């Protein structure tokens, strides 16, 4: 019997932090709140390191830990309360606790002046609890528990600045859009229960593996429904709309939840369910197409955004698209690899952006920045590492993972178009990231020196952030540079370490990946790497041209490409479309169905257009809720008549 790893402790650490800060935080001094908030995630991180050490000493993976057997047992299926540890989980654990801890540290500095300090940290710890549950879960049900939980905390944290109306609405939007994804996830679970009678990863996948003849059919249905869930959580087409709005939350939240961890849960889920997807080529193809399309689509929007956090939001969507693309071509370990490097550099980008915003007293518009290179040196240099990483410049982290995905796509038969899309997106990425870089740190200052800086810092104006914020920047900066080396490809003289590490998890699915590469393959890979490097450099050159050397060029380009520019500037009117096609009809139905007691002005935005449609139509149905008892009795009688008629009709038809 394998010795216990005490996995159950892992999520309990942050839960304890949540409980302490949530219950007592209001009365505790700030220092104590910070100590609690840092200590418990740190403890979790230490335990993860301990587990890594144990794994290194030859602990047999996968390792399963059960707590309540059976947790739920009903006719037809049962589920255990159990945690599963394999290489994939281990990687995720490291990212979640490691990056999580760093961002917690950063938040101590960033949120220092905010109201509700304790509230913020209790939510953050709660988030870690749910995220760890999600990652550790050994069955779909428990995974869903974490899945919903992180969504809930995300909702709470997006709406953290509750005095802002837009923040509360953004939170709601995130939650509702995710409900659509959850709907898919839940249905997938029901189908799994109906077909396999279990939700345990092991049993379901073993069951599928035991039946080689199972192909497509209901497996495709399940896979597509899971995919719907993943698109919700990971902000992919068609459910990406919530993520840009989610930037209303505090910046550390954007870094932790909406860049590094929660939004990658969808990718994790796809990787976890790879056995299922492996049996459905159709579903896999759709995953790849969604990934490539989202990557490209979001990158184009990112090109024109002026809000620094929104640029990063769209770039997150785009990078998540890469991960989906990787999963879609069955290169799961590449997807997870990109997930890891992305967690490093995207968290860093957000944190550095936060540092800039912090320095400018809350300014997020890049048109009002510029020339900050000298004033914020540490921020500048770390940000530079992140920009280089995301643009895919050698030898930064992003280069290795993005290149691996592109190479895998290229080598998959029939996916050359997706590869081309990915390559163009890489160029776009490089372009808008360097655009951000130049607009923020180069050129002449466009900000208002007197209004910048936090009030209590006195008249110092723009200043570098405190050490609690800079240390995380430096750590993540180093990781953005070196973090990708774990996947240094064999073609470039490395060992492909991460791919080999994850292989035991994915062997059954990625049979094509196990073929020993030949020298020709290596040559091809090197060429591909060179091409993508060139594309990235081209993006850099273009940004350099338009935003540093000849700024007027940007304006003239805008004039010349008006037909292209307008839809992109308006983000393709997707939000408006959803409003018109889904939100308004539902509201109209609700209003017309129940006339009495309905006031306007309840649901944001959709009212003015509503009134016109609502007032004219269907005054007959309106009377349903008149408050008049005779009409109620009338409705009752009518309903009774309807029921009897239906009953009689049915009894005749049988």
């Amino acid at each position: 019997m394998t010795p216990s790893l005490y996995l159950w402790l892992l999520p309990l650490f942050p839960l304890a932090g949540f409980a302490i800060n949530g219950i007592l935080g209001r009365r505790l001094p700030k220092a104590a709140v910070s100590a609690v908030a840092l200590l418990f995630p740190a403890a979790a991180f230490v335990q993860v390191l301990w587990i890594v050490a144990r794994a290194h000493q030859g602990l047999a993976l996968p390792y399963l830990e059960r707590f309540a057997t059976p947790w739920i047992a009903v006719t037809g299926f049962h589920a255990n309360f159990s945690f599963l540890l394999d290489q994939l989980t281990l990687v995720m654990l490291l990212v979640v606790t490691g990056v999580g801890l760093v961002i917690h540290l950063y938040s101590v500095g960033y949120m220092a002046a905010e109201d509700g300090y304790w509230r913020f940290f209790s939510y953050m710890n709660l988030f870690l609890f749910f995220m760890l549950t999600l990652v550790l879960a050994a069955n779909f049900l428990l995974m869903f528990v974490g899945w919903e939980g992180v969504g809930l905390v995300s909702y709470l944290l997006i709406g953290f600045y509750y005095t802002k109306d837009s923040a509360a609405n953004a939170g709601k939007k995130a939650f509702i859009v995710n409900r659509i994804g959850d709907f898919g996830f839940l249905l997938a679970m029901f189908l799994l229960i109906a077909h396999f009678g279990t939700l345990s990863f092991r049993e379901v996948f073993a069951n599928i593996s035991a039946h080689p003849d199972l192909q497509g059919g209901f497996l495709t249905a399940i896979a597509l429904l899971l995919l719907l869930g993943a698109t919700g959580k990971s902000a992919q087409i068609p459910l990406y709309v919530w993520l840009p709005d989610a930037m209303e939350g505090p910046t550390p939240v954007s870094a932790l939840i909406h860049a590094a961890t929660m939004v990658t849960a969808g990718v994790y889920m796809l990787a976890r369910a790879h056995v299922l997807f492996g049996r459905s080529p159709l579903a896999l193809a759709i995953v790849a197409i969604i990934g490539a399309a989202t990557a490209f689509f979001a990158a184009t929007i990112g090109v024109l955004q002026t809000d620094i956090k929104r640029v990063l939001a769209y770039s997150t969507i785009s990078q998540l698209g890469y991960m989906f693309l990787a999963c879609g071509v069955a290169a799961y370990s590449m997807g997870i690899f990109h997930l890891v490097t992305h967690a490093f550099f995207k968290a860093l980008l957000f944190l550095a952006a936060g540092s800039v915003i912090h320095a400018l007293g809350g300014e997020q518009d890049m048109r009002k920045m510029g020339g900050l290179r000298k004033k914020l040196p540490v921020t500048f240099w770390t940000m530079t590492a992140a920009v280089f990483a995301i643009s895919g410049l050698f030898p930064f982290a992003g280069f290795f993972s993005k290149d691996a995905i592109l190479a895998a796509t290229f080598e998959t038969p029939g996916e050359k178009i997706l590869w081309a899309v990915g390559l163009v997106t890489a160029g776009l990425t490089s372009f808008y990231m360097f655009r951000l870089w130049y607009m923020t740190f180069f050129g002449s200052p466009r900000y208002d020196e007197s209004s910048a800086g936090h009030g209590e810092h006195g008249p110092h104006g723009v200043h570098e952030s405190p050490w609690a914020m800079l240390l995380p920047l430096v750590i993540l900066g180093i990781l953005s540079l070196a973090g990708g080396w774990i996947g240094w490809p064999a073609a470039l003289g490395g060992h492909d370490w991460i791919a080999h590490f994850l292989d035991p998890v994915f062997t059954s699915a990625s049979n094509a990946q196990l073929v020993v590469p030949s020298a020709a393959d290596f040559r091809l890979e090197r060429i591909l790497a060179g091409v993508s490097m060139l594309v990235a450099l081209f993006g850099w050159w273009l940004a350099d041209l338009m935003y540093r050397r000849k700024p007027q060029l940007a304006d003239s380009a805008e004039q010349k490409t008006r037909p292209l520019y307008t839809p992109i500037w308006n983000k393709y009117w997707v939000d408006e479309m959803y409003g018109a096609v889904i939100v308004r009809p539902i509201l109209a139905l609700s209003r017309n169905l129940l006339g009495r007691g309905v006031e306007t002005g309840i649901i944001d935005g959709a009212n003015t257009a509503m009134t016109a449609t609502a007032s004219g139509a269907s005054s007959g149905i309106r009377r349903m809720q008149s408050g008049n008892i005779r009409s109620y009795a009338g409705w009752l009688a009518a309903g009774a008549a309807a029921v009897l008629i239906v009953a009689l009709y049915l009894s005749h038809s049988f």
Partner: protein
Amino acid sequence: MNEPMTPSMIAFSPALRILPEILMTLTGVLVMLVEAVLKPRTSRKPLGIVAILGTLAAIAASVYQLFLPAGTAFFGTVQSDAFSVFFHLVIGCIVLVTLLISLDYFEGHTSFVGEYYALILFGATGMMLMTCSVELLMVFISLEISSISTYILAGYRKRSATSPEASIKYFLLGSFATAFFLYGIALCFGATGSTNLYEIAKGVADGASPLLLTVAFGMMLIGLGFKVSLAPFHVWTPDVYEGAPAPVVGLMSTAPKAAAFAVLLRIAYGAFGTAIHIWMPLVWIMAVLSMTIGNLGALTQRNVKRMLAYSSIAHAGYLLVAFTALAPMGIAAASFYTAAYAAMNVGAFGIISYLSGYNEARTSLSDFAGIARRHPVAAAAFAVFLISLIGIPFTAGFFGKFYVFTAAINSGNAWLAVLGLLNSGVAAFYYLRLLAQMYMVPVEPPREADTAHARPAFILAMAILVLAVFALGIFPGRILDLARAGAATFSGPANAASQTVPVALLRR
């Protein structure tokens, strides 16, 4: 029918089959008599405590019934089995918590509150009796006992205008609906010559006058559909819930519903089990209608009580989804859902009764703005109940829905589950709006003195409910086992009588 004297039955008196009801009645009578002799101005709190003790005794008696072999008594009119015990426990716990919430609610506002306690106890007697009746006339009588009590309770805030209005509306429409139920019973008797559910089941299986039986089932569905506020018989719900005192709404939106659903389960699966093709489409349609109308209605409400009224219509719809599943799983899912729904809804209305005060002047959505700052603990409890109503994991609401929809899909009703899930997606919107009001809207100074301060009994009640919400969500095992044992009693009259309830359930 003459079974009380068979040798196996001599061991215990038939009265043990209705022991919880007897205890409730006696406590009610006691409270009522003492109320009559007490001086008008003296506090009625001791009476409330007596009522609580009586309820506790009834709960204990229900648990004791688990140790009896399942069987009928009083000439085959009542049957105590795991199913009835399950609902006895649910109703008993609802009543217990409601009494705790009410203990201080009327203090200083209304005199003669002893009547209130007595009415709750009598109503609970009726509801409990409903769940263990296997004889339609008995069902009808107990339905009336429970209904009349709730009619009066709805009007218990005598000084306000809305409360009596709610009471009158509930009474008139309720009597109208009950008439349908009675007519359904008459038709059943006409078709099969009996009002005993098992006899009816035989008649249905024999295929006797299908036309008459169809109409009979339709009539009974109408009567019970009114009680559980299923669309299209839901119109009374928002008005009545808005007007009635909040603690009473908590009670009447859960306990009578649980009882009525228990009866519906017994009728649908027990008596009409072989005519499933007749009632399945009806139930299907009503489930979809209720979910949709309830959720769409709640979407635009500004009054929190009205909003929760619509939400209760929707939840009745979710519950009905379980009916479309095949027998044992569907019954267990429906039973479990009543318990889960009871925990969160009684809690929600309890918090409303606390936050909006006796006059219920503060029930609009904007009155809940910034409540989290002024009443952090109450707001947190409310948040738990709302989150459970949304159906977030780790809460009772999630597991209830999960189980119901699993049951539906397993029986091939995937579309119904899809509609239900879509509906619960829409539902998240209005619950979230309330949550956002509480937590994310800047604090406004209250318009009038906010005198709410929690008493120990109230705190205890809320603590019980919050724990129940989490317990049902995280460790639903034991309750599920009981629900499943209850569902198993439906396998037939012969089985039900001979089957021993697994006592091991309690020891696990």
